[in-house]
């Protein structure tokens, strides 16, 4: 790899990091909005027990972060098969997370807590989790791209680049969910 290519990869990796910061600001905006809104009146606030599914989904996404890291380590050690396996595992866990979040929505609806709601604090639960799921979807696409790279056996530099960017983003999604969950728990 030439010096110029090395710099280009570094600059592109940095782009992913910056995107993470921008996404984080989106959620900072949403959660601040929640605080401003909820602080406005005593009628507002979550006023519910959060669905149990969130606990399980938290577990899944933390596990998926670990498998993602394993995939990255395998890529560095040039263990292509292991890399592919761990990426598949990560995707599986990610899809599981996705499904669990949707089931949590169902639980909420079952309790009569709708998205269209005069207490918008409760609508915010859907906004937080929904916006997060959009990121999970994007993350799954990145993991998929990394897996396909492994299948097609692309050059190691590119392979490593895909894995690094996918794992930066995936860990971000993980931390983001923990932030949102803790935020919701604190306001429960």
């Amino acid at each position, binding site marked *: 790899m030439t010096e110029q290519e090395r710099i280009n990869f570094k*600059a592109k990796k940095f782009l992913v990091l910056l995107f993470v910061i921008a996404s984080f600001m989106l959620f900072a905006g949403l959660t601040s909005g929640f605080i*401003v*809104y909820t602080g406005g009146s005593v009628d507002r606030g979550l006023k519910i027990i959060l669905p149990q599914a969130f606990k399980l989904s938290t577990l899944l996404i933390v596990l998926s972060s670990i498998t993602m890291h394993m995939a990255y380590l395998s890529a560095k050690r040039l263990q292509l098969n292991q890399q592919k396996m761990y990426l598949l595992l990560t995707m599986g866990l990610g899809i599981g997370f996705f499904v669990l979040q949707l089931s949590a929505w169902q639980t909420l609806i079952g309790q009569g807590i709708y998205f269209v709601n005069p207490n918008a604090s409760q609508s915010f639960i859907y906004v937080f989790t929904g916006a997060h799921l959009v990121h999970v979807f994007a993350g799954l696409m990145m993991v998929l791209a990394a897996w396909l790279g492994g299948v097609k056996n692309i050059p190691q530099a590119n392979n490593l680049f895909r894995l690094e960017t996918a794992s930066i983003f995936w860990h971000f999604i993980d931390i983001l969910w923990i932030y949102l969950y803790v935020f919701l728990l604190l306001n429960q």
Partner: protein
Amino acid sequence: MASTAHDTAVHHDDHGHHHETFLTKYVFSQDHKMIAKQFLITGIIMGVIAMFLSVLFRLQLGWPDKSFPILETFLGKWAEGGRIKPDFYLALVTIHGTMMVFFVLTAGLSGTFSNLLIPLQLGARDMASPFINMLSYWFFFLACVIMMGSFFVESGPASAGWTVYPPLSALPKAISGSGLGMTLWLMSMVLFVASSLMGALNYISTVLNMRTKGMSLWRMPLTIWAFFLTAITGVLSFPVLVAAVVLLIFDRSFGTSFYLSDIVMQGQVLPNQGGSPILWQHLFWFLGHPEVYIVLMPALGITSEVIATNSRKPIFGYHAMVYSLIGITVLSFIVWGHHMFLTGMNPFLGGVFMITTLIIAVPSAVKTFNYLATLWRGNIRFTPAMLFAIGLVSFFISGGLTGIFLGNAALDINLHDTYFVVAHFHLVMGSAAIFGMLCGVYHWFPKMFRREMDERLGYLHFWITFICAYLVFFPMHFMGLDGVPRRYYAFTEFEFMKEWLTVNVFITWAAIVASLAQLAFLYNFFHSIFYGKKTTQNPWNSNTLEWTTPVEHLHGNWPGEIPTVYRWPYDYSKPGHNEDFIPQTTPFSETMSSNVAHDFEGNAEAELLQAEYAAKGTKKSVVAAKPVAKAAAKTAKKPAAKKKTTPTKKA
């Protein structure tokens, strides 16, 4: 010619050759120089349209009772009987503001000059991701098309003001502009935010990762510092606007109540309960205030560069300039409440926002004084670019001062939502930032289009615009002090406003003259692209790296290696040197006669060499004379040497 330039481009090591078609070269270009031009021309077109809209509503304000049959001819039902309808008046104001703030002064300004100058002034082949850079332009283009498209829908464009406050923006049936027009506005803005984020991410990554050898952060031109900090401000604030817009879309289309509560429309009570319109204001202004600095900072960076170059003096207080930009960046995130003093905010909180707001005047003032100190006793060259830069300083002072009035929560009770605010932000943002942008266009036109603009037309453009901008906006202060509210349709409807009608007529005439002056610019700009005088490699005798690239554009910017940088960009008129500028690429070993201790930043070896040189100079005058003679010989040879670098010779 172009093909020879291209041949040189393929020879350098790190750029694979790829075949260029018309489509990849001019339309879906990934070259930052072409993307810069795309942004500029789109920005200029949007600027002309937005200016035209303002002339329309100025006609209404100047002559509310008069009929202009020609308006009906091309506006149709929006101007029945030749008079602009109230609904359409609001749409005009809204789209004028949106286009000017976001499309002209954000995308047109940052998009053009960050794209052009970041790689060129830092010594990079291109942006971190040329592909994302291209997407950034095309998202912006789509945003423009959709916004324009809203003029062609039945119910007309959005009309809730550029800040689109709910409930007007949240209830599709509120006024005609709240319908499809508002939906299109939101779509357009989402695309626009995506575009500016992609741009900003690229700018930051490029500045941090792709500088050439020797280009430390503290050797970057102030333009780059400004673009860099602007991009950071954008990355931290635009996502919050997305959050606000997402909630607004839910309120509009899904029936949620984030912003809506207790609304009775046409005698019907709406089901939305519990929402808070103030929430929108918080989220909007958390972006909105940083946004005004996103608009201004690039203009400040451009003027720093132009003022130093054309005063033939180092910029006064380079470090102070950078720290003020950093200060503005940080502070701009904690002052948003000054737009909300009258929302029933806790007076203590109002006090906090008042203090932070007044503090932001400090870095602004530091910058102003530094501009003035740079000009002070400079060897000033009054190029059109320089005049526009000085114009910016003037507007920044006169508009900034009124900001301090508005920043006082108590005074703002009287002034909020009056023409005083309109005067404030049109001087400090509208006029100042537009002047910064025009300054950049005049200064870097030769770099972009390889030709020069006509100077005399430039002077004409400057003086008429400068005078008319003051004639338009200055009287508005007095209207505001008298309590005249902004965004009102007809001054004839209110007894106390009638006395201002004559002033309105005056302002409208000034606005019309100002718009006509822009024709001089447009003609000059487009004519010079094709028929302007061919430029030389470094027409302004400037120090920065972009003027070391060949006049012909190459993909990859420099043929062969990227030059190394040895010094900061402001060595103008350095005592002891035989010319009044020393490019950043000149090593200190070639300028022994002008080096000072500070230049070596503690490099002991260099200091020793310089000391030896100085010692020789005092002992034997013969030896000392030698380098001077050498330098003289160099200047004599210069014309020949200069020719060598122009591509005509190279090919």
